[in-house]
């Protein structure tokens, strides 16, 4: 069963509803022992990086996520949950992240190199470009997904960026390494492609289960 980490910062309802639509069993929990037993974890997140990390650290859920990642079972961070997987963020002052993926979370500059200003947050539908073969993209075609964020994951590690969108800078949109995945956009709010990406994640879980 998929565990959704309930740490008070997520849009848990919409993620839960999306899994229900996919007919995938899940549970919501803040209990470490329970979460550790899950076949996969989803780390949602709406809010600020610093608040989220402070809750994850004080509840011990930060260690739980790292421990879970070490087991090799699939982990998916969504939106802020994806950003938390990286090394650090500059939102509200430099804050250390979960350090599962290489890179730092930075604010959109708000102006291009040519000095032309643009709007932040990056809010709305943007096209996903697939950069790498990944089981998470299996059988899918490039389409639009829904983003809402003011910060993006800046990484030099090309292998981590599975898919991207362009908004002045390159926005890593689907990231991953091994069993750790992240989506900067909201798959549960991204119509058919979003639902298909979530479906692929749940299939990774099922495949892993059947191998075991």
């Amino acid at each position, binding site marked *: 069963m998929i565990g959704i980490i309930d740490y008070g910062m997520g849009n848990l309802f919409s993620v839960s509803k999306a899994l229900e639509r996919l007919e995938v069993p899940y549970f919501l929990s803040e209990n470490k022992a329970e979460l550790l037993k899950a076949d996969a974890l989803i780390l949602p997140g709406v809010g600020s990086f610093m608040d989220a990390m402070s809750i994850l650290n004080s509840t011990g859920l930060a260690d739980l996520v790292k421990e879970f990642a070490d087991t090799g079972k699939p982990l998916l961070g969504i939106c802020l949950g994806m950003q938390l997987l990286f090394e650090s963020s500059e939102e509200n002052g430099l804050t250390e992240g979960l350090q599962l993926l290489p890179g730092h979370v930075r604010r959109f500059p708000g102006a291009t190199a040519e000095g032309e200003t643009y709007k932040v947050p990056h809010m*709305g*539908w943007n096209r996903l470009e697939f950069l790498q073969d990944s089981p998470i993209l299996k059988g899918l075609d490039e389409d639009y997904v829904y983003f809402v964020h003011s910060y993006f994951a800046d990484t030099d590690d090309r292998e981590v960026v599975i898919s991207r969108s362009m908004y002045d800078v390159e926005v890593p949109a689907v990231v991953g390494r091994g069993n750790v995945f992240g989506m900067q956009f909201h798959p549960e709010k991204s119509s058919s492609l979003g639902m298909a990406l979530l479906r692929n994640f749940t299939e990774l879980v099922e495949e892993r289960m059947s191998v075991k």
Partner: protein
Amino acid sequence: MLTKRIVPCLDVKDGRVVKGVQFVQLRDAGDPVELARFYDGQGADELVFLDISASHEGRKTMVEVVKAVASELAIPFTVGGGINALEDMKRILRAGADKVSLNTAAVNNPGLITEGANFFGSQCIVVAIDAKYDEELGSWRVYTHGGRTPTDLEVIAWAREAAERGAGEILLTSMDSDGEKKGFDIKLTKAVSEAVSIPVIASGGAGNADHFAEAFIDGKADAALAASIFHYKETSVAEVKSYIKEKGVLVR
């Protein structure tokens, strides 16, 4: 590149979708859950769900209706009306909404914008502005309480302040255009869109597909909202999108 968003608005009173012509006459245009499902299937980019009687009657938005709508949607939606405190925002966002919209409450207590933005992130906080041109002011005046109460605030200055205080988006309704179906207020939309660095949703006055093209091309809006023309099937989201795409507007 971001696409321009087409946003059907569900004005809700007592659990039913209604649309006021200039905020006064109300007609019953259906069930919010039915409409949500309908618009999701039609390719709407987002929905706005406003409890229009909330400020007037001090009524809280019905969380159960929000939950029911959220269960049907695989697209984002905003909820406004009756949100007066951080607790209200938590309740609505936990019920499945992606953003909350503050109108009267933000004018009465601008600190609420910052409070919400600090807790949830700016992207969750929409400030809705009801604007009416004022000869004396030589600009647009901000109205509250569903357009019934004039304030001392000038629209451009208020939009800037809202953005500085942490709003992630402005939902800008022209009271002069609302319900007239003669097009969005392009001057107003452009003035606000150019004054702030956050997205602006144009609202009020949509009568046909060309009005949307104007709002995006001339008004520089990031999204455009309409209710009655969609609810009464005078046009569809799909028709509007295909028309504005031909005009060179990037859509999903």
